[in-house]
């Protein structure tokens, strides 16, 4: 069933080891890279939205503070 007598034979690929493993290796590598890049991109985009949301929240809070500060002098009288 198995075409090769031993592991050593498998890795040797009948003398064509360099070409076969180069091909399979680069294919696997390229496919892995683009998948990984896509995942990283996704995380980065989510992070971008989160950062913006937090910024907006901070700005909102700051504006609230400013409004409270300006109304206070009236009440302290």
């Amino acid at each position, binding site marked *: 069933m198995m*075409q090769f007598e031993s592991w050593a034979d*498998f890795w040797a690929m009948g003398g064509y080891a360099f070409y076969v493993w180069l091909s399979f290796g680069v294919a696997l590598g390229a496919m892995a890279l683009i998948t990984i890049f896509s995942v990283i991109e996704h995380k980065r*985009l989510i992070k971008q939205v989160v950062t913006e949301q937090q910024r907006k929240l901070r700005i909102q809070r700051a504006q609230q503070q400013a409004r409270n500060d300006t109304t206070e002098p009236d009440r302290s009288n």
Partner: protein
Amino acid sequence: MWKWLHPYAKPERAYQLCNTLLPWFALPAVVCLVVGTMWGLAYAPQDYQQGDSFRIIYIHVPSAMLSMSTYVAMAIAALVGMVWQWRTAYMAMIAMAPVGAVMTFIALLTGAAWGKPMWGAWWVWDARLTSELILLFLYFGVIALYSAFEDKQQAGKAAGVMALVGVVNIPIIHYSVEWWNTLHQGSTITKFDKPSIATEMLWPLLLNIFGFALFIALVTTMRLKNEIIRREMHRPWVQMLVKQKETNDAV
């Protein structure tokens, strides 16, 4: 007949569809690729002429075939975007492009690696490899044109035109390159074209073709999600989605 497709013109629905489809692409892709590759590497017989270097076919043929079908799919997405004015169609188009380009690159590299033991040279201007190289240029063109525009609506339309011009040219390029090849190289028939293939070799090949196709669908879906978020970042549904994600992660 196509009414069921219409809701996916809205990015939000398309995003949900992507999420649903992801596991259906991921699992079968991994299974097919692992089984197909192992079968081809260890169990399929070697070619009596080319020995074990023939096993490269299990990567080269799927990637070459799919590099072309992905371009056609890209062009179809562009056409859908143009005719029905669907933003999501253009987003799908640009999501596919880098994946197709990677496939083309793999086809070129494995083609060269296969050719070196066969013909003694890393690069020969045979019809198939030359056409793949031109296809790679076409992919780069679409990607470059899209990134040159700030307004991504415009970018989609412009890249869509080039994708369509490209797809019309692909058969012309193939025919002319094949013809040019026979002119300049006599009648060397490459083993790339229609290798006489035994059934023990056919099954792992089909599995890998299927596996590669699923892989392309998987990564395209992931990239489509990214493109949707990028373009729709300020919409309330995206904001809600991210907030939910955050609370889920915090839990």
